[in-house]
Structures are given as structure tokens and as C-alpha cells.
């Protein structure tokens, strides 16, 4: 924590704000918030009605149909599975980058970003369910029979379970200090709530020290998980040799980069809203933060444009006829509108961001506009990844198909978006959306000053418990993985251990829970130093 800056902010803040509850309007109902809730509830209602339709009459109410017989089998749901999971890229990456490389200007954004990750992953999981023909069977059979050999295994376990849980752990651990702080400022029910959240955090130097360790290592472990997760999503398409337009090694990296673009873009939008419209945090979320995000977005965008050029070249230069046909249908056929939308959005954003980068100044509107554009591009690009190969990519002489998105599909997606918004605003109503230390409300001790005060025995116990959990997690993970891979049995039979996929997921969870164990394990301390100052 830079001393000078923090000091300044704190002083300003002290003049303006007397109560953190007032500032974040926690527990206080404002008209804007209520309207937002009503809005999202309406969206959710639309979604629930649509989903009920789909469950009652079957997927015939969607615009999805048999490929080769005039339709596409995967449509808007899959587009939004990818989109939602893509957005989740932002949060954990920003947090990890901040933690590992110490990008201080992004620190205020870590919590909104992590929350974005968690919520979008939940939405991703829900849209996966919406896509299934039999939701109940999916909930029953996936935990029982999920197979490692399927690229979807990555989506079901890595992304939705592992990634989501890792984010939750990371999110929770970094919120403990604030929870402890809030608990000390509140009374009654809220106090109990925050106390439970803080779970033993008491402002000791040890607490800060441990969190500093654990967050660093979590960040290091989460980053590869993130790449894996987004890659497996790409593999779902990339390893299908029978679908012209899908079979490409670029799918996996492309998915990772596009996830980065849409996630960063969404984060910029949220940062803008928090900064200007809701909490007036101009002094906390600095222009520099926007500039950093903008630069990141620029790099990712140009990378993706490069990918697209490579893609087009491969698909058109001496490619097999079917690949060419699909590429042609995308660029000049029925998919020209989404395709050129993607291209224009990406190019315009890149040019604007590049101008900002070169000019040395920061234009927040440029960042905002390009963020909106790249999110449009993210949806439309996913659309032209998923759909055209099913309507035009046939090796046999099937007639071309088409995809007419139905109100039910749009309804369900709207419902999911509404649910996401609701979760976000409810969270913002019960917990400070910005880490309090970055807002200068709570002071975090300097890392160099931290001193370990824990007695050796509890430290040993703590470490032992940590290692035990981690080891157990790893063992469960491996056993679960091998069993889910049907080792020792035929690939289509039940896994040798019942609920093997659950064991695998539990393994992943336990491995991450080890960090929680490490942090919250009760200890005995020599002194009781308090860093709380306000």
C-alpha cells in the first residue's frame, strides 16, 4: 500500500463519509436499487416462464432443430454458455494479476471483478442446464456418470465446479478483512452475519500475513486453471473433425483470448457504473485503472484480430471444399451480419484503444465504448462459431439449414441476465463492493511490517491441517479423475467408484479449501496487536 496515496484518500474520505454503511448504502433501500431489483425480477419472471414452457413442451419451443434437417442443435444457449463463462475470465485474472504483479491501480476493482466471475459462472452453469433436454437427468446423471473423455467434462467440472469454487475461495478470503471491519461497525443481526463471514479474522498481523501468502499461491494456481477451463470450452468445438469450421487448433486459444476480451470489457463497464453512476468513486477507481484495462483490452483485441485473420486464411486458402463453404457462408452468406459486426466492433475498439494508448491521455468514454463494442463482438463471434457449422458444415448432401432464435430462448437468457443483475445488486447491498482498504476506509498494514506472533505449536498444527486437506484434495482429485475415466472398466459402464465425478470435484474443492483451512485455523498468539485505525 503506497503510503502517500492512501493517506490522502483517507483524509478526503474522513471529511466526506462518516459511516461506511452510508457510503455503500448497505442495508438501506434506495429507490434506484428497488427499481433495479424490480427490473431484474421481471427479467427473471420472463426467464422462468420461458423455462417452464421449455420443460413442459420440450425443446420444440426453442428455435433449435436437428442439424441436417433444417436446423441447428446448439444455438443461443451454447453461445451464452460460452459468453457467460468467458466473462468470468476478468475477475479472477485481474485479482491474480494484481496480486502477483502488484498492479495497484486495479486493486479497487478486484472485488467487483471477482463477483463478476462468480456470478457469471453461476449463470454459465444455469445456461448449461437450460440447454439440456432433460434437466433433472442432467442433475442426476452428470454427478454419477460424467466421463473424462468428453470435452464437456471440462465444462462441467473444471469450469463450473473447480473454477467457480476457486473463485469463491479467493473471493471469500480476500473479503474476510472487510467483514471483520464491518462487524466491528455494526450491531445486531448484521454483526453476527459479518462475524460469521470474518470467521476468526481479528486484525492480527498474522491474519494479514497468512492472507498475503495464501492469496499469492491461490493466484498462481488459479491462472492455469483458468486457461485450462477456457481451453476445454474451446475443445468442445475444436476437436470435432466432422464439423467443418470447428476443427481447428485455434479454437482453444481463441476461446481464452475472447474470454479475456469480453471479461475485461464487462469489468470496464462495471467499473464505469460504480465510479460515476452509483458510488462516485472517482478518486478510488482512477483514470489509470481505466487506462490499464484499456491497454489490456487493446492487446487482447489485436491478438484476437490476428487469430481471425489466421482463421480466415486457413479456411479459404486451398482449404477443403466444405471448410471453404462454411467460411463463405459466414463472410458473405446468411451470417454476414454477425460476422462483419464482429470484425467492425473489434477493429473500431482496437483503433480507439490504440489511439488512447499512443496519445498518452486517458479517455474513459473510449474505454467504455470499446468495452460495449467488444461485448457485442463476443456474442456475435460466438454465434458464428456455434451456428454456421451446423447449418452449412455437412460432409453429406444435406440441405442448408437456418436458425431462427425463438422467444423462449431469448426469454431464458434474459432471465439469466436478470438473475445475474439481482445477485450483483443484492451483494452490493450487504457488503462493500470495493475493498475498504483501497477506498481508504480501512487501513491495511504494510507487508514489511507484518510480524508473525503465532505460537509454534498452533502454527505447526495449522500447517499440518493445511497439508492434510491439500493432500486429501489431491488424492480425491486423482482417484475421482481416474474413476471418471472408467479405468479398469469399459468406457461406457458406470465408473468403478460410485459418484466418481463428484469425488473429483470434491477433490478440487478440498484442494482450494486447504487455503481456507490455512487461514482460518484457530491459533494462539503472543500479543494482540491491532491494526484497526479509522
Amino acid at each position, binding site marked *: 500500500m503506497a503510503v502517500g496515496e492512501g493517506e490522502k484518500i483517507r483524509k478526503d474520505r474522513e471529511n466526506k463519509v462518516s459511516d461506511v454503511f452510508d457510503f455503500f448504502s448497505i442495508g438501506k433501500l434506495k429507490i434506484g436499487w428497488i427499481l433495479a431489483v424490480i427490473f431484474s425480477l421481471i427479467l427473471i419472471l420472463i426467464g422462468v416462464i420461458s423455462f417452464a414452457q421449455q420443460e413442459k413442451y420440450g425443446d420444440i419451443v426453442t428455435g433449435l432443430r436437428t442439424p441436417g434437417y433444417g436446423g441447428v442443435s446448439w444455438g443461443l444457449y451454447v453461445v451464452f454458455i460460452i459468453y457467460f463463462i468467458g466473462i468470468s475470465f476478468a475477475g479472477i485474472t485481474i485479482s491474480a494479476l494484481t496480486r502477483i504483479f502488484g498492479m495497484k491501480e486495479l486493486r479497487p476493482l478486484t472485488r467487483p471483478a471477482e463477483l463478476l466471475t462468480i456470478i457469471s459462472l453461476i449463470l454459465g452453469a444455469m445456461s448449461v442446464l437450460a440447454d439440456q433436454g*432433460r434437466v433433472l437427468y442432467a442433475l442426476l446423471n452428470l454427478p*454419477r456418470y460424467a466421463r473424462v473423455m468428453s470435452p464437456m467434462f471440462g465444462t462441467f467440472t473444471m469450469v463450473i465446479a473447480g473454477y467457480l469454487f476457486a473463485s469463491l475461495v479467493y473471493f471469500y478470503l480476500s473479503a474476510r478483512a472487510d467483514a471483520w471491519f464491518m462487524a466491528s461497525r455494526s450491531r445486531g443481526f448484521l454483526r453476527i452475519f459479518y462475524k460469521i463471514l470474518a470467521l476468526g479474522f481479528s486484525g492480527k498481523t498474522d491474519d494479514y500475513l497468512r492472507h498475503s501468502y495464501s492469496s499469492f499461491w491461490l493466484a498462481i494456481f488459479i491462472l492455469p486453471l483458468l486457461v485450462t477451463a477456457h481451453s476445454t470450452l474451446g475443445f468442445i468445438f475444436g476437436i470435432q*473433425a466432422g464439423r467443418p469450421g470447428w476443427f481447428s487448433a485455434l479454437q482453444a486459444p481463441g476461446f481464452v483470448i475472447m474470454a479475456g476480451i469480453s471479461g475485461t470489457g464487462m469489468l470496464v463497464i462495471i467499473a464505469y457504473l460504480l465510479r460515476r453512476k452509483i458510488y462516485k468513486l472517482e478518486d478510488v477507481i482512477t483514470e489509470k485503472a481505466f487506462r490499464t484495462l484499456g491497454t489490456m483490452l487493446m492487446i487482447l483485441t489485436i491478438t484476437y484480430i490476428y487469430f481471425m485473420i489466421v482463421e480466415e486464411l486457413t479456411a479459404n486458402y486451398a482449404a477443403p471444399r466444405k471448410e471453404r463453404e462454411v467460411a463463405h457462408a459466414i463472410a458473405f452468406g446468411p451470417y454476414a451480419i454477425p460476422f462483419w459486426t464482429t470484425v467492425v466492433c473489434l477493429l473500431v475498439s482496437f483503433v480507439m484503444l490504440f489511439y488512447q494508448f499512443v496519445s498518452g491521455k486517458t479517455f474513459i468514454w473510449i474505454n467504455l465504448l470499446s468495452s460495449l463494442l467488444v461485448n457485442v463482438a463476443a456474442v456475435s463471434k460466438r454465434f458464428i462459431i456455434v451456428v454456421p457449422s451446423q447449418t452449412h458444415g455437412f460432409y453429406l448432401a444435406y440441405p442448408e439449414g437456418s436458425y431462427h432464435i425463438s422467444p423462449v430462448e431469448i426469454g431464458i437468457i434474459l432471465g439469466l441476465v436478470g438473475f445475474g443483475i439481482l445477485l450483483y445488486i443484492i451483494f452490493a447491498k450487504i457488503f462493500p463492493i470495493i475493498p475498504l482498504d483501497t477506498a481508504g476506509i480501512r487501513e491495511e498494514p504494510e507487508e514489511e511490517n507484518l510480524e508473525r506472533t503465532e505460537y509454534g505449536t498452533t502454527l505447526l498444527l495449522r500447517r499440518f491441517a493445511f497439508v492434510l486437506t491439500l493432500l486429501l484434495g489431491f488424492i480425491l482429485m486423482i482417484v475421482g479423475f481416474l474413476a471418471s475415466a472408467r479405468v479398469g472398466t469399459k*468406457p461406457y459402464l458406470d465408473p468403478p467408484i460410485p459418484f466418481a465425478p463428484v469425488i473429483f470435484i470434491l477433490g478440487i474443492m478440498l484442494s482450494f479449501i486447504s487455503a481456507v483451512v490455512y487461514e482460518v485455523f484457530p491459533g494462539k498468539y503472543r500479543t494482540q496487536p491491532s491494526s484497526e485505525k479509522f
Partner: protein
Amino acid sequence: MEEEKKRETKNKKEKRNFLKLFAIAGIFAGVPSFVSKFFALVSKNDNENGEEPEGKSGEKYRWGMVIDLDLCTGCGACVIACKIENNIPPTGYTERDRGTEIEWMSLIPAGEDKDYMIPIPCLHCDNPPCTKVCPVGATYINDEGLVVQIWDRCIGCRYCQVSCPYERKFFTWKKPEWPETYLQWLNPDVPTRPKGVVEKCTFCSHRIRKLKERARDEDREIEDKELVRLPACAEVCPTGAITFGNLADPESTVSQLAKSPRAFRLGEHLGTEPKVIYLAKEKRKFISKEV
């Protein structure tokens, strides 16, 4: 008595020791074999570890089909026979029913000018893309080379459907709608489908099963001539273009036909190794298109 007790305890101890030994041996022998088996499974298609994919060898039956396009007149009798045999409901007549066709046996255009139709069932690939991707193992290739679908396990994600290069998998977009009287003719050997699952051609596996049972009861082997017209489509084909049989038996009709110089398989470059073999049409000549 005491001696007995002693012996018992001794036995118990021995048992325990034995178990211990067994456990240790198990750990030493089991874990590596576990791991090696896993890798064998993962690298199944390389055939490095001597473990061949199911249905490829060593099995008694490997069901296959030969469709002679030179004989096929495109009449569609196979399509109808299949639908009736397998309780497939009519599609419906509104715009809403577009693309909800379920045709295990279907006709698709072929030829350079797309001017004639060919029948196409599920090709029952030896290396099927659809079984690899199934997240729950609801579709798999069984020991006899049939690619089958377990409806009770299927969750309806339609991944196999999009992964099939031949579009031979069908999703039940809606609950089958039968006129009440049609329920009478439904085949009792085949279940009707729930909504929300993927389904496909089974090579009329219920008929194969019945035939096997009969052969077992009569204590004999299944004969080739019983198999040639076994599935509903082959049974009715007016030209006898569709032939069914056991590809594992080199003497069977299908194996003989498959050796024809006209034999080819659909999408050979995809490496799916279909077990439905087509015999090509002889070159035809059109004089001119204008009168």
C-alpha cells in the same frame, strides 16, 4: 476347546497377515496396473498396449450393412419400415415441426448432380465421434460394434448430435404425438421415446437379440441367411439393395459384398470407419438436359 480357540486366533492372525500382505501386494501391483490401464484406456486408439477397441477383434459378431446403390431405386420403403418397426411418431404438419424429423433410416441426395437418393441409416462407425464426446456415457459402441444409445442415461445435451458428421443422431424435440388409435400398432419390442433424449438407429438390435435367443434355444449357431434380411429396412427393400450381416465372419454375405471393387464408405477421410458399406452406382450417362 482352548486349542480350538488358539487355532482360531491363529487362523485369524494368519488371515489378517494374509490380508496385510495382500493389501501391500495390492498397492504394489495394483497401483501401477491401475495407472497403466488408465493410460491404455486413454491411448486406446493407438493400439500400443495390445488392447484393441471393442468390437474390432476377438468378438464373434461385428454387425455391418452393405447398401448397393446400383440396386436402390430410392422408393423409401426402408424409411417407412424403420419408422413402423421402431415406433417413430409422424413428424407433424406445422411450421413448428420443421426439423423435428426422426428418421433413423433416411434418404439423402447423392451423386455429382445430387440427382438420386441414397438410404442412410446410422453408419455404426468403428471409431465413432459421437461416443467419444458423450459426457455421461449414454452412447457407446458395444462389443458387437453397434453404436447404441441409453435413453435413461441421456441428458439431452445433443453433443453427440453435433459431433456426428453424418447427422445420424436425432433429438426428441417434443413428446411423440400419436393419434389414440395408432398406439395399437406400436411394436412391443421397442420402447417409445421420452422427450429430450438423443436417439438413433440400432440396426434393429431387438431383432438381433431375438434371433440370438432363438438360436440359443435351438442350440445352434446363427446362420448368415437369417441375418441378411434381418433389420426392418433390409427386410422390406424391394430391390434387395440392403444387406445385413456379420462382418467378423469372412464368409458372410456382407463380408463378401464388402470386398467388391465398388465398395466405399461415406466420409472415409474422417477416419470414422463406418460399418455401413456402400456399393457405388455405375457411371451413368445423360444425353443432354435440353430438349
